[in-house]
């Protein structure tokens, strides 16, 4: 967080939080007594408040939803999809952006102008609007969300990497590699790119929180992960009708989402400080690219 005088301390708290949520997402649904998707005795079980006991005496940590399903177990199962989509969407977008930016900077000329022109065009529509148009027109689902996150998320990283590669290409070690007979692509991927990756890594880390938020937004609007499969976004939407009488159905998955996004932001902030980059304080939801407020 702070820069300069104090060296960044390893963020054990955020790391432990993320590991705990990931482990919970993997293990809890496997160990749960009740199937998180099955709808059983609805009348006896529906909308039980947090920490209350169900008819069989099992404790519902975060209560139950309108169909009598355990909110905690479902939120953990939802965490699987939300985390997977967020991490995959962000990493794949970062990888695509790195590739495009590196090639654009290396080749220059028409390749550069075409790819950066496409980035300009895509950046001229708010990312959320692009996401809505793409996600809604194709069949909604996990794959669509990931593909759309990548298609609308590569531009920021591409611009960052392009600038970095352009910066390193005139360095002496590049000339040395070429003089030693390294091929054009080998020079790019073995010598230039590794020295230009830091901003891409930071942007991708900070992009995880952003991708988790965007996925939840799409799922909230019914355009992302489809029920009965839970994701944090569609669980929040599912509790909308009972928000006044049983607020935990919507609020619990949202709290989990906020904790996840905060932890990944703190991790990104730390990485940024660690790699000696300027702290813009504006990392989340923005990696050189202005994104919409979800």
């Amino acid at each position, binding site marked *: 967080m702070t*820069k300069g005088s104090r060296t960044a301390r390893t963020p054990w708290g955020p790391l432990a939080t993320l590991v705990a949520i990931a482990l919970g997402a993997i293990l809890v649904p496997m160990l749960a007594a009740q199937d998180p998707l099955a709808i059983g005795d609805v009348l006896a079980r529906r909308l039980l408040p947090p920490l209350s006991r169900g008819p069989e005496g099992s404790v519902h940590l975060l209560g139950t939803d309108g169909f009598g399903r355990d909110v905690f177990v479902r939120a953990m199962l939802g965490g699987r999809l939300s985390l997977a989509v967020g991490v995959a969407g962000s990493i794949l977008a970062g990888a695509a952006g790195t590739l495009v930016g590196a090639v654009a900077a290396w080749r220059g000329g028409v390749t550069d102008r075409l790819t950066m022109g496409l980035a300009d065009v895509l950046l001229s529509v708010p990312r959320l*609007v692009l996401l809505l148009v793409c996600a809604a027109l194709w069949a909604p689902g996990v794959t669509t969300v990931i593909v759309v996150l990548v298609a609308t998320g590569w531009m920021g990283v591409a611009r960052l990497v392009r600038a970095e590669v352009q910066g390193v290409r005139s360095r002496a070690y590049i000339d040395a590699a070429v003089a030693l007979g390294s091929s054009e692509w080998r020079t790019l991927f073995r010598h230039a790119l590794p020295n230009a990756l830091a901003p891409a890594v930071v942007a991708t880390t900070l992009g995880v929180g952003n991708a988790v938020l965007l996925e939840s937004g799409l799922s909230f609007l019914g355009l992302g992960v489809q029920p009965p499969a839970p994701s944090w976004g569609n669980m929040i939407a599912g509790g909308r009708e009972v928000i006044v009488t049983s607020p935990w159905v919507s609020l619990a998955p949202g709290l989990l*989402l906020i904790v996840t*996004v905060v932890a990944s932001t*703190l991790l990104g902030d730390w990485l940024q400080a660690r790699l000696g980059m300027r702290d813009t304080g*504006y990392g989340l939801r923005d990696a050189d690219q202005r994104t919409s*407020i979800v």
Partner: protein
Amino acid sequence: MPSSLLTSTARRLGGALVLFWLVLTLTFALVRLAPGDPAAFLIPPTATPADAARVRAALGLDQPLLVQYAHWAADMLRGDLGTSFSLGRPVGSVLREALPVSIGLGAASLLLTFLVGVPLGLLQAAWHGRRADRAITMLSTAVYAAPTFWLALALVAVFTYGAATWGLPPALRLPAFGLRTPGATASGTAALLDVIRHAILPVGILAAVGAAGIARYARASAVELAGEDFIRTARAKGASPRAVTYRHLLRNLWPPLIVLFALALPGVVAGSVFVESVFAWPGMGRVMLSAIAARDYPLVLGATSAYAAIVILANLSAEVLLPIVDPRRAR
């Protein structure tokens, strides 16, 4: 000097128009290449394939894509956005109703965002490293991480259920839905007050998330500027702390903030989709979502072009503003 400013502005305008056209063409391609048939939404399920074909012909969907593009482009150049498939009304008039709602919501929230966020960030920079600074950083990081629709639902729970349960005064029982009280006949000041009461929660939520982000930015910038050589020079020559803050630090801080204000507007206008959805506001978000669901191509294209126009105008005004507020950037 003015002539060079004129040519550079003209060049930027030309570039912006080309960019706008490319965005529209890309959206046209995206929308038209997607699966799904808009005619299917307009005919009863019992209709025969011949009926479907007639509807498609009436909408011009039976022609080759390039011909459709040419027709659409010619209409656009005349300023005709077409007729909505699902509403049967001109797209222009649908957007004229919805845009002011979303832009008003966005602009009001953005104003509040900066009025709250910038002073907060500066206070944090002044308290840099102290407990108050760390506490506010934690809070702003959490608020910035919260989806607006979640915040909206949480506040609805507090101000409806909570207000009734805890016996909050009626003034604090804020309306949770709509832009106006249904069936209200008030006019003038009373009507305005009614809209403001309805706007408190939506505007407040967007502003809270935005202010959290701007506070992070303002804090980081101010902390960075405070470590610059020219601040040390100003101190060394004996300038009072007040003069250092106002003449040297803030003078360098506000140009990027003004640019950020212009750049942030489109994101807030687009992001209001969620708040509009929770509070049932008749804005662009609702238009966009229902148009997409109905495969209403003209309306989707019209709404997207409105969003793109806002982004491009915001970028343009940021480019024009920067040299004015920061003379070092003037070329």
